[in-house]
């Protein structure tokens, strides 16, 4: 009996996900993560509301390297979600479905989100323009 190569079903545990699928999952994961960011935003407002001392201790806390790293990862998640979200908006308009361009758009949005995060980092930490 000859072995014929039949199409395989993309079973999740043995199937190497294409990069576009990984990005799609990351979009959802960053979305869920960012709702945590909204809560952190409300907490920061609440600290400012409580008074100068509460604000100062929060500022001391967020300036710790590990806290700051988590904040910037969160901001990167925001920009990644934003950039991939823009691609979703184009998809909704029926644009950007060319298969050969999928990875090109992907690099574009990864580059865009890194650039936005980097520029934000510079803006936040460079003196002036507050």
């Amino acid at each position, binding site marked *: 009996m000859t072995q014929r190569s039949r199409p395989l079903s993309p079973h999740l545990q043995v199937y190497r996900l294409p990069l576009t699928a990984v990005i799609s999952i990351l979009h959802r994961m960053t979305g869920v993560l960012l709702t945590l960011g909204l809560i952190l935003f409300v907490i920061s407002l609440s600290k400012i509301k409580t008074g100068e001392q509460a604000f100062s201790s929060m500022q001391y806390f967020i300036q710790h390297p590990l806290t700051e790293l988590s904040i910037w990862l969160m901001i990167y998640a925001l920009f990644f979600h934003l950039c991939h979200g823009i691609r979703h908006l184009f998809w909704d308009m029926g644009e950007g479905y060319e298969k050969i361009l999928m990875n090109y758009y992907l690099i574009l949005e990864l580059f865009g989100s890194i650039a936005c995060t980097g520029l934000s980092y510079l*803006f936040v930490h460079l003196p002036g323009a507050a």
Partner: protein
Amino acid sequence: MSYQTPLAKARGLGSAKKGTSHWWMQRVTAIALIPLSFWLILFVKQLFHGSYADITHWLSSPFNLVILLSWAFVGFYHGALGLQVVIEDYISHEGLKISLVWLIKLAFFTGAMSSLVFALHIVISVG
């Protein structure tokens, strides 16, 4: 026995419910969040390097306050719509699913209201 017509019964069983408006509002809020999110970075700069006087002064500017609160409101709305989809996708038990969606919506509404009240409190006390 039920006097419901088969069509009415089928309509009642539909899963889409308010699917179209959900989908549409997800997009509308997404577009609004593109420019609004950059305002968050201005706020983060204040959080890292501003003095207490700086950040309260920054928040007291009506423009900053309106944009930042709009970001928070639209963000909470967008987040609630998004989490609803995630819950609907992964939780098959109908009762648990509905309860969680309600819980998320209530919690996010409370979050949006809290940000409004806290911000107003800051602005009024700085006066």
